[in-house]
């Protein structure tokens, strides 16, 4: 109990409180701008976290990402342009509600069920993490190898793209992770004689390039999104209690699916929203109403993507394996702040973990009042012309990349990754898989090579331990899943949508 008091004291520190409020506003504003995603908001925050205390640093990441995932619903609902990819699944539905004159209800559902999803996801994190930590203590390199590999395979299932292209993106990420001498043998690889490459490619410049610079590039070639008409909103939360009671079952299902998908390494909020929306339609009593402005799918998917955000921290905290691209950034920050992920984090640093839970809860509670203010101000915020935002984002990319190592080379690297991300996205190669490959490359390799050395080159020990056998089965299942769908479609079964999610 004293640990809990200590945690409350940590969170109540003035710098943490300021960090939570400031990053909440930042997350709401950035998330609501079309094209600026939650991942990008988080990546640009990393240089700021250098300067903060460990708890304040984690607080900024948690708060900003939760807010950005919610506020991505705002332009989706009002303009039919998702603010973040995680809102894309139900953008059409929300926009249809707006056209029916129910914008308040759609936005309120996004807000209310995001907050509920976030809190339920946090509770699952609180319950699950210590249980799994006990199990994780007995993990060897075999289990870690399979976990990391499973994470990579899940990342390839996320994308609404060809699974082969997704796997190719992931392999490309792993190849980029090979650069430098951070490998078990310490041999410099693929450095082309450049000393700047000896230390390897840092994930942050890669993330900023792929998610932020490529977005600025896209803005250069596309037309400016339409301006939001000024409008007055009625009460935002008026009908939410009615919706909660009416759609209790979909809500819980959404929370549950979101938690499961979040815990799976590599799969995050976007996938949670797509799967939940599809599930909602499948199990609904009135599937024919979907797409015409029916709140049921919004309830389920809106809860789901925020629930996955919290449970995505489970693999990140326990194994250092990112649950999605946001936790990939968070892991870097955890290491930087001396809170190295691992099962012992929960025993040796319990007060920090309690503080983390508290921040999640607080973030999801203050989301409701701040979210209402944001919705009311949305037409003013979204009025800012793109030409005034994108150049500043670009400048922040340059300064942020420079700040990670006080090294101008990383600024060039950010530009290179921007081009790579842009070209890949245009040709249907999912960039999230690339990023997870880069982040997890050295972990996969280290555990793979040490396992092979331990087993004397034998493959059998990879499957012998019970947990590693289960993880191996899941990984291979994820690998063969697209093949199964393809054969099912070919043999004339009822045509399944790819991964049962795309709609």
């Amino acid at each position: 109990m004293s640990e809990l008091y200590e945690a409350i004291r940590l969170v109540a520190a003035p710098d943490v409180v300021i960090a939570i409020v400031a990053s909440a506003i930042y997350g709401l504003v950035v998330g609501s701008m079309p094209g600026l995603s939650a991942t990008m908001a988080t990546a640009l925050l990393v240089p700021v976290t250098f300067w903060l205390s460990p708890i304040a640093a984690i607080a900024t990441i948690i708060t900003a990402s939760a807010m950005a995932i919610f506020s991505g619903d705002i332009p989706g609902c009002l303009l039919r342009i998702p603010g973040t990819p995680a809102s894309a699944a139900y953008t059409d539905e929300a926009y249809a509600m707006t056209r029916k004159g129910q914008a308040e209800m759609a936005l309120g559902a996004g807000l209310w069920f995001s907050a509920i999803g976030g809190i339920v996801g946090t509770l699952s994190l609180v319950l699950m993490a210590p249980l799994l930590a006990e199990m994780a203590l007995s993990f060897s390199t075999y289990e870690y190898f399979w976990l990391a590999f499973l994470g990579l395979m899940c990342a390839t299932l996320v994308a609404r793209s060809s699974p082969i292209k997704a796997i190719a993106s992931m392999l490309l990420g792993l190849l980029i992770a090979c650069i430098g001498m951070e490998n078990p043998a310490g041999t410099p690889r693929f450095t082309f004689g450049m000393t700047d490459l000896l230390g390897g490619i840092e994930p942050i410049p890669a993330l900023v390039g792929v998610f932020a610079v490529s977005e600025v590039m896209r803005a250069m070639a596309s037309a400016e999104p339409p301006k939001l008409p000024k409008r007055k909103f009625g009460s935002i939360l008026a009908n939410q209690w009615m919706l909660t009671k009416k759609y209790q079952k979909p809500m819980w299902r959404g929370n549950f699916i979101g938690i499961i998908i979040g815990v799976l390494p590599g799969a995050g909020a976007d996938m949670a929203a797509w799967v939940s929306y599809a599930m909602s339609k499948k199990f609904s009593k009135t599937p024919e109403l979907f797409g015409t402005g029916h709140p049921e799918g919004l309830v389920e998917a809106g809860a789901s993507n925020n629930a996955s955000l919290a449970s995505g921290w489970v693999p990140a905290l326990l194994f250092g394996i990112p649950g999605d691209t946001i936790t990939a950034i968070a892991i870097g920050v955890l290491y930087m702040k001396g809170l190295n992920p691992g099962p012992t984090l929960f025993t040796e640093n319990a007060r920090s973990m309690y503080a983390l839970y508290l921040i999640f809860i607080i973030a999801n509670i203050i989301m409701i009042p701040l979210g209402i203010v944001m919705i009311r101000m949305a037409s003013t915020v979204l009025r800012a012309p793109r030409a005034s935002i994108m150049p500043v984002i670009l400048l922040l990319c340059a300064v942020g990349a420079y700040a990670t190592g006080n090294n101008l080379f990383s600024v060039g690297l950010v530009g290179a990754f921007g081009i790579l991300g842009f070209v890949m996205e245009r040709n249907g190669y999912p960039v999230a898989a690339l990023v997870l490959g880069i982040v997890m490359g050295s972990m996969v390799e280290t555990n793979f090579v040490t396992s092979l050395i331990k087993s004397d080159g034998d493959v059998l020990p990879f499957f012998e331990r019970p947990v590693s056998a289960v993880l191996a089965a899941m990984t291979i299942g994820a690998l063969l899943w697209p093949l199964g769908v393809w054969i099912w479609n070919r043999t004339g079964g009822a045509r399944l949508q790819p991964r049962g999610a795309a709609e």
Partner: protein
Amino acid sequence: MQLSDRVTGAVLVGLGGLAAWSGSRLPGVPGQDVGPAAFPMLIGGGLMLCGAMIALGIGHSFEVPEEEEAVPGRSRFYGLRVLVPPALLLFYMFAAEPLGFLLTAFLMVLVGAFALGARARLAVPLALVAPLIVHLAFYKLLRVPLPEGLLGAPW
């Protein structure tokens, strides 16, 4: 830049082959079978396989076609504007030390805003104010040693 699957697949096959080949030439660790070469060779092989499958169009049915949002009535060179952001980053990389942060950032924001179609009434004030705020935040608050160059900040 929309390329056909054949082109991107072929590029991946080439890249994978190159990775596997140069990986195989890495020196091994004496007395151990599994050295630094194993992983790049494995990845190179995988990339070659995936590239070949992509070039042959396998898995294409899974793709959700992306809506092309071309701006009508523009010349072919209009598409080259996407290269402005990386070019500006390259400019920052080389100019930040000699010119200093404030001047470099001023030029960067100015060019970026004009490339996005801003009028001078918006672009010039933005380019004057944004670098100062970013400098204040990063140099003063976050203690990032931004290069001073020709024009130092007043603080």
